[in-house]
């Protein structure tokens, strides 16, 4: 995607503003939502891994 000079300047200014704004501590609700989002992303990554049908879980876990 080609940015116009005006769009590029706007993007850089927004980035600079964000860098200057100190991170706000999260509320417990926001933390929980962030944890759920991270879990969702983890499960998506996990679901993408192919596993042969005959593979059993490593329950009898003896290396």
């Amino acid at each position, binding site marked *: 995607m080609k940015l116009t000079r005006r769009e590029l300047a706007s993007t850089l200014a927004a980035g600079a503003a964000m860098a200057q704004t100190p991170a706000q501590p*999260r509320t417990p609700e926001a*933390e*929980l939502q962030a944890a759920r989002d*991270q*879990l969702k992303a983890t499960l998506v*990554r*996990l679901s993408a891994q192919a596993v042969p049908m005959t593979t*059993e879980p490593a329950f009898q876990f003896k*290396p």
Partner: protein
Amino acid sequence: MAEIGNDLFFATIRELNERLLAREVSAADLARTFASRLQQLGPRYNALALALPQQAVRKAEETDKEIKRGRTRGPLQGIPYGVKDLISFGGQPTTWGAQPYAGQVFDYDATVVTRLASVGATLVGKLSTVELAGGGGYRFASASLQGPGKNPWDITKWSGGSSSGPAAAVAAGLVPFAIGSETSGSIVTPASYCGVTALRPTYGLVSRHGAMALSWTLDKLGPFARSAEDCGLILQVIAGGDSNDPGSAGHSFYYTPQYGRAVRGVRAGYAPVDFSQWAEPEARPAFAAALDVLKQSGVEFLETKLPDFPYGAVISTVIGAEEASIFEELITSGRVDQLRDQAQIAGLKANLEIPALAYLKAMRVRRLIQEAFRDLFGKVDVLVSPGRFSPATPLDQPLDQDRGSRPQDPGMSALIAAANLAGLPALVLPCGFAGNLPVALQIVGAPFTENMLLAIGREFQAHTDWNRRRPPQT
């Protein structure tokens, strides 16, 4: 009481034992002195959870009587040590580093404590841990009843976790050795940050009976000590089958340096990008020099890739599901809100929502990971990587802070997660400094190859002295 100089605070187990048997010091002398030192200096590093001076001296006096009668029990007899405060010592608090369990007392000793007592080692204190061993995913080093673990090399830096106290206490010469634990990184990280030799044993080799469970299929207990040899001596005592631990592999371990395979010709798999790009620039010279030492000892380095799996997703699903089950009551009752770290509280709550199918999927992928590492260890004998790519972080730095630019080649950056999923042992070897902070290598082996790892460690430490360096003001 015999005068105990600074040298003894940083002595190896064999050096201390020689002095004991020569009657230069008594076990009671050592117990009093180390217990006192731990009480005085432990709080400087937030390393001390509970001092046990009286019982330590009582135990040590019994040991002295035995030594006087000629009843020797091996090199650990009379040697003081500490345990991470998720390991039970009967009748005394075992807090798991967490406010909800601050008053918890068990009426039995953990198996590792019983085994160390049987050879006459002297427990002098409980050492700090990240709350609940950090399994929910903590953001700050302050996630502990004792506050952030402070690094003896620079107290503005983190000691690492979750075995913060064991690493700091050994690094600062407060105890000759300590027992910590690892689910995923909790021995390797603090050992690397504090410049301490440590061993994460093969899963199932050391009984976890009496230790807090965070993840049944991942938890391991292991030693922090002054040298690779010390780790071998300790492992011989604490390893072995235990019917009280469902995860026990039933294997014994005998430390046999005299029969050990020669280091010359050992094939070490490594990823050059780990040392040239992943490692922080200030640490690269130390890592390069360490690899040279191993090469001069005859270790053959082969460029190797880790098997390709989503290790992070697998391990976080396994830990998340197992810990949510273990701590279900803590979470659903709301007492989880008493923990210090908000990210950890949220992580534990969210993990209740992990579907069973996801856990089963993760455990099936884990079977594939085990098989892939079995194949890999047909081509190499060990894997070598930095323990951590950078030295210890500032105390108040968020632990989930983005590193920024990442090399495109992953190298072995996932080795901690991968090796833990496969149940593999690892030896951490201090190998130099980045500025004033230690860095270390991790040497990972196939299951039950601890003797080979220790042989490599002994050879490395015969040609270097990083493991004998002392932090300032100790």
